[in-house]
């Protein structure tokens, strides 16, 4: 049995379904992200685990114990909020102490534990200050320390980095992952930022409109999306709306795409093929060797992103294609330049349209 076990969770607010038939097993020590757009039900699910919302139906088991109806202050679950939620009337030390005091731990233990977690988030020197005297990133690290001090059975993070600027966000997410793996604490992380979810999670749960779209590792989600929503929500994908013409080809306008991934579809059925921009190769001259899925186009836009350059290409039939290329060590490409582009058949994700 899994450590945290959610079975058929449903939640409705004023006749609007927020979460529907949500089932998920989380193993001890894993970091699982809930990823999805606003209103997809990820925060509601997290709040049900925390006990701030009660599910309409379904059960939540934590270490074999049914906690579905246990009040939040009796669950032993730590939570970090987007708005930090440090107590403004208390010093940093008092904030971190709060949970331990509520648990009536002996004083020496409290002192030791507070030092320990402040050390863990590398903010021991701030203990006498008040929350408003700290930067946003520091406040969130204190909030994390405060949640960890009670040695929670599960740690919940509700968009913890959304209020921070980009640089702090990247640094802090690394910090969160470091602490999480050090302590081996089972963690649920809610975010709408795909990069964040993909970079720190053992598993990602992609949600949309209250339903789970896909559960998998970051790589599985990115490389083999189960649904079109997942494919387009995670990263960018070129969409080829096509009709299957035989067991390994399909027709998209005047382009004939070849891939054996259409095998499972009957001839004439409408499908969409998805190709990631980094899987599109671009050539200034027509490659001499034979290549499948090779087409002609004109560069319309060129955006420099540092490591890669994103090209907007208009194929000869008028279709817009996005390609990410590394221009290091090759001839510069220019606006309005005629180019050839191709992608390997195995890079086509095909799903019903």
């Amino acid at each position, binding site marked *: 049995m899994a450590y945290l076990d959610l079975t058929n969770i449903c939640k409705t607010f004023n006749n609007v379904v927020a979460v529907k038939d949500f089932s998920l097993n989380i193993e001890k020590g894993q970091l699982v992200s809930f990823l999805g757009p606003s209103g997809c039900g990820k925060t509601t699910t997290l709040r049900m685990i*925390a*006990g*701030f919302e009660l599910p309409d139906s379904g059960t939540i088991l934590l270490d074999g114990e049914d906690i579905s109806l246990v*009040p*939040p*202050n*009796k*669950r*032993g*679950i*730590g*939570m970090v*909020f987007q*708005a930090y*939620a*440090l*107590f*403004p*009337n208390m010093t940093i030390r008092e904030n971190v102490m*709060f*949970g331990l005091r*509520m*648990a009536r731990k002996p004083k020496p233990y409290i002192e030791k534990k507070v030092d320990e977690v402040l050390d863990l988030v590398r903010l021991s020197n701030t203990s006498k200050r*008040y*929350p*408003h005297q700290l930067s946003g990133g520091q406040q969130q690290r204190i*909030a994390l320390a*405060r*949640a960890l001090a*009670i040695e929670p059975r599960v740690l*919940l993070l509700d968009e913890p980095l959304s209020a921070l600027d980009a640089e702090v966000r990247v640094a802090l997410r690394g910090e969160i992952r470091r602490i999480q793996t050090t302590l081996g604490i089972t963690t649920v992380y809610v975010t709408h930022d795909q990069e964040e979810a993909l970079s720190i999670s053992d598993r990602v749960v992609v949600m949309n409109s209250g339903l789970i779209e896909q559960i998998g590792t970051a790589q599985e989600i990115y490389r083999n999306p189960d649904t079109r929503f997942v494919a387009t929500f995670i990263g960018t994908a070129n969409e080829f709306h096509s009709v299957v013409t035989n067991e390994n080809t399909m027709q998209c306008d005047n382009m004939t795409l070849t891939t054996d991934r259409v095998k499972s579809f009957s001839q004439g059925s409408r499908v969409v093929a998805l190709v990631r921009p980094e899987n599109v190769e671009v050539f200034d001259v027509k490659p001499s060797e034979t290549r499948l899925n090779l087409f002609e186009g004109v560069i319309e836009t060129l955006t420099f992103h540092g490591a890669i350059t994103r090209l907007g290409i208009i194929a000869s039939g008028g279709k817009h294609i996005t390609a990410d290329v590394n221009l290091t060590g090759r001839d510069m490409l220019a606006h309005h330049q005629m180019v050839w582009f191709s992608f390997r058949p195995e890079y086509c994700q095909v799903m019903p349209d």
Partner: protein
Amino acid sequence: MKQKPSVSQILIVGFFILYMIIPIVATYVFSVAVRWDRTILPEGYSLEGYTTAAKNPYFFSTLRNSLVLSLSTVLVSLIIVVPTVYWVHVRLQTAKPLLDLLMILPFGIPGVVLALALVQVYNFHPLNRSAMLLIAAEVVFTMPFMYRSVSNSINAVDIPTLTEAAQSLGAGIRNVLLEVIVPNIFPGILSGSLLVFATVFAEFTLARLIVGAGFKTFPMLLVEFTRIDGTVAAALSVISFTVAWIASLLILWAGGKGVRSTQEVVKAK
């Protein structure tokens, strides 16, 4: 850089201060004046007004009654208003417009009407014409002051999230309120208490109509003296001001810590 105030700005502020302060100063001077109707300044000064007032058999009992009445009203008001406003903010946001509307009513209903209505409705033992009924009436009468002050300070803090943060750390509702919510809305509680205290201490209509001579308050004594001796009435007014101020200072002093923590909150914004 700060601009120097113009003459007209100084005049406006100066006029406001004079407008507010002249009646108070005049009352103070009148309370120690021997005779003050034929000259610009009093013809002489004496403390006779005060000694006469203090010698009155009702002086200390009315002072005590008014203090008891004011403090009880503050206490009852706090017990009713703080949890209500808190729950409305955390769980029952839909009830907020209704409460906001209700809180205008005491301003719209004249004290006389409120008093007579209460006397008629609660015309049974042990409530009829009792101090308890008076306290309840004063709570209603001063409710907007307490509600507005507490509600405004609750609005300034993210109460629902702080509540959830405290709960996730294992705090029950008592600890959430006492350790997290109250300290963070303390300035509102304090200013509400001050307003309620000062209003009730000087309130005459409700006290006169609901309990009358059964529970004589300081303002009732004052009104009696306005008909007998203006100097003594002025002396009583001065004592009334002074008591209200001392009480305010005491409340502020007791709340010093809370005020400091709020300054932290305000700075943080």
